């Protein structure tokens, strides 16, 4: 199983290698995204100044705790930020949409689902309990002006089979007749039925047990390869995406604090938050006492610092500059390179972190 999936990862790499820069086949491009919530205490930024590329043929894992803004970012990609929030600045380009943030009304409704597929956190809550799955799929097709019902159902059956679901049974079932893992897979069928090239999954394995989680993750990997999607998996648990994602993006307090190729981020996390998150994972083998808790608590919308580094209050390395100046994403410099990484280091390099201490701006001279 595992060796199989490892060998399957190479086609993705070769595709990206042939174009030399991974960002050259853009699936989604987010630039300067800012989502603000109007609160009694004034406007509060939930997502602040986020740039994100999701190249086609890759999986990106977006990791963040509650209040990090990760789910708001995902909703913003559909231009579906709930009130009292709104997209205050930035643009979201998808392969077939110039800027998702500028779409309204019918154009927006049609773009959702065709340009970008979305799998909701709790699929049981996003399915209609009174309608059979097949009928809901037909509704979806009708809402997007698909005339050929037969083709839609054929596609649905094919997708179900791909996901290890019995097509006839699944399409004629009500949502309560399906297990949690099956509902999550049905959620993926819904997201893919209109053939989007960008797929966003919000906490796809929360509330699933280990084996269902593994099945869903394997399916995500599988459809990703087959359809050459740009996939974004949003999760609070870095371990979920550690095996699956090509790139990791770590959010904290509404900002991206670190991003880069998964392997590199895990091996040499530069941002103290990323480092702390990884250190706090209890491991299944080796010395269990190596796991170290991360002190402090995640900020909520009201307590996110407006100025300076969002993590500084929990950070053991904070310096004066951290409370004054907001760090930008800077390249992480490597001191030593492991041989096994040489083959993909040229392709996958590009790890950046927002930290005055660990990834200082080139001109700044920082003494710790």
């Amino acid at each position, binding site marked *: *199983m*595992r*060796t199989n999936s*490892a060998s399957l990862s190479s086609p993705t790499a070769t595709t990206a290698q042939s174009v030399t820069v991974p960002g050259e086949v853009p699936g989604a491009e987010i630039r300067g995204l800012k989502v603000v919530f109007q609160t009694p205490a004034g406007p509060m930024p939930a997502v602040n100044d986020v740039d994100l590329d999701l190249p086609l043929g890759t999986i990106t894992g977006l990791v963040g*705790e*509650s209040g990090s803004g990760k789910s708001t970012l995902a909703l913003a990609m559909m231009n579906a930020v709930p009130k009292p929030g709104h997209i205050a600045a930035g643009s979201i380009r998808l392969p077939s949409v110039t800027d998702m943030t500028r779409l309204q009304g019918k154009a927006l409704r049609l773009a959702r689902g065709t340009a970008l597929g979305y799998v909701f956190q709790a699929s049981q809550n996003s399915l209609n309990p009174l309608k059979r799955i097949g009928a809901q799929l037909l509704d979806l097709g009708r809402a997007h002006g698909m005339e050929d019902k037969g083709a839609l159902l054929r596609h649905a059956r094919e997708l179900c089979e791909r996901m290890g679901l019995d097509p006839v049974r699944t399409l004629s079932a009500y949502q309560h007749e399906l*297990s*949690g*893992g*099956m509902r999550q897979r049905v959620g993926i069928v819904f997201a893919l039925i209109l053939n989007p090239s960008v797929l966003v999954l919000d906490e796809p394995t929360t509330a699933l*047990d*280990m*084996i*269902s*989680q*593994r*099945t869903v*993750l394997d399916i995500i990997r599988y459809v990703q390869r087959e359809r050459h999607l740009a996939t974004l998996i949003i999760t*609070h648990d*870095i*371990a*979920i995406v*550690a*095996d*699956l994602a090509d790139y990791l993006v770590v959010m904290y307090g509404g900002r991206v604090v670190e991003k880069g190729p998964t*392997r*590199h981020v*895990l*091996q*040499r*996390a*530069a941002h103290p*938050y990323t*480092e702390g*998150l*990884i250190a*706090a*994972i*209890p*491991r*299944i*083998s*080796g010395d*269990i006492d190596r*796991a*170290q*808790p*991360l*002190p402090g*608590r*995640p900020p909520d919308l009201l307590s996110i610092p407006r100025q300076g580094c969002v993590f500084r209050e929990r950070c053991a390395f904070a310096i004066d500059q951290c409370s004054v100046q907001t760090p930008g994403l800077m390249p992480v*410099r*490597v*001191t*030593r390179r*492991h041989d*096994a*990484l040489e083959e993909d280091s040229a392709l996958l390099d590009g790890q950046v972190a927002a930290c005055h201490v*660990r*990834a200082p701006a080139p001109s700044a001279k920082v003494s710790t």
Partner: protein
Amino acid sequence: MIEARGITKTFGGRGGLLGTQPVAALRGVDFVLPSGGAVSFIGESGCGKTTLGRILCGMEQVDSGQLLVGGTDLARLPQRERAALLRRVQMVHQDPYSALNPTRTVRQVLEDPLALRARQLRRGRDWVESRAVELLGLVGLDPAYCLSLYPHTLSGGMRQRLVIARALTVDPDVLVADEAIAMIDVSLRLGILALLRQLRSELGVSVLFITHDVAAARYVGADGQLYVLYRGQVVEHGPVDAVISSPMHPYTQCLLSAIPVLRGLEEPAAEQLMPIAGLDAGHEPPGCLFADRCPNAEDDCALSRPTLRDAKEPGHRHACLHPRPRQVVAVPLAPDARPSGPP
């Protein structure tokens, strides 16, 4: 501290309007939780883990079998004494958001049970207050900051600490933690696990840990026992690291294979096992319960249901007719094989 002998529990099966089939939640479960020890139960959803926790806390009655708390058989006690005995077993739920009354402050949450406790111990009002402060300190909450707050102002991790502090007000001998970290932010999870560890070592509290997360079970009770439940039957148990490093039962091997690998930090195991079918809880085979999903099933597996038998190491037992140890969990890459971090 707690000893279970052949506990069984079956739900439903009364026929009725929907014609429900009986579901065996527990099929003759034996285990021993020593004082200050840790026992962890793992398994899929619907394997009976939660029912077991509820039985231990007195929220469900067993159909048959014995549950001994401190050497006394619960079933033989009159209601009053049973309640007193069960007070020594306290539960920490999965959801710290619904486990706390939103209209009670932290002080009230702790002082209500403490007032009862004070009456039992013939202590005064001062004791109640000082004990509340002491307990908050013990679970890592700042009393000066927390006491007058309402639960909604606390983070998930702080709430779970408060729930644990509340459980400690009655000086329990056993904490039953049912998926106690599932809803906690990841950066705070290890803090809760470390607290459970600390309560074990400092207060001698036994912990019964019910979880999906095998690594978390390993952290709380590396010196304890791991039990693997499948459809209400213990299919394998033994010292935590023995079960993790050389699982014998294919179901255990499937569970452990499903744990995601931390790529770059760990090396995937050479062997992986996945069930060949989904769980069909309605099917009640005469043979091994796992045979219809087992990638290694042979013909005789469908004939008779295997019972627990000894594996190689002492105390490691499994219920499989054709056991083969497999190393299925990832192993850490050697630290020197990894590049050092940035300066």
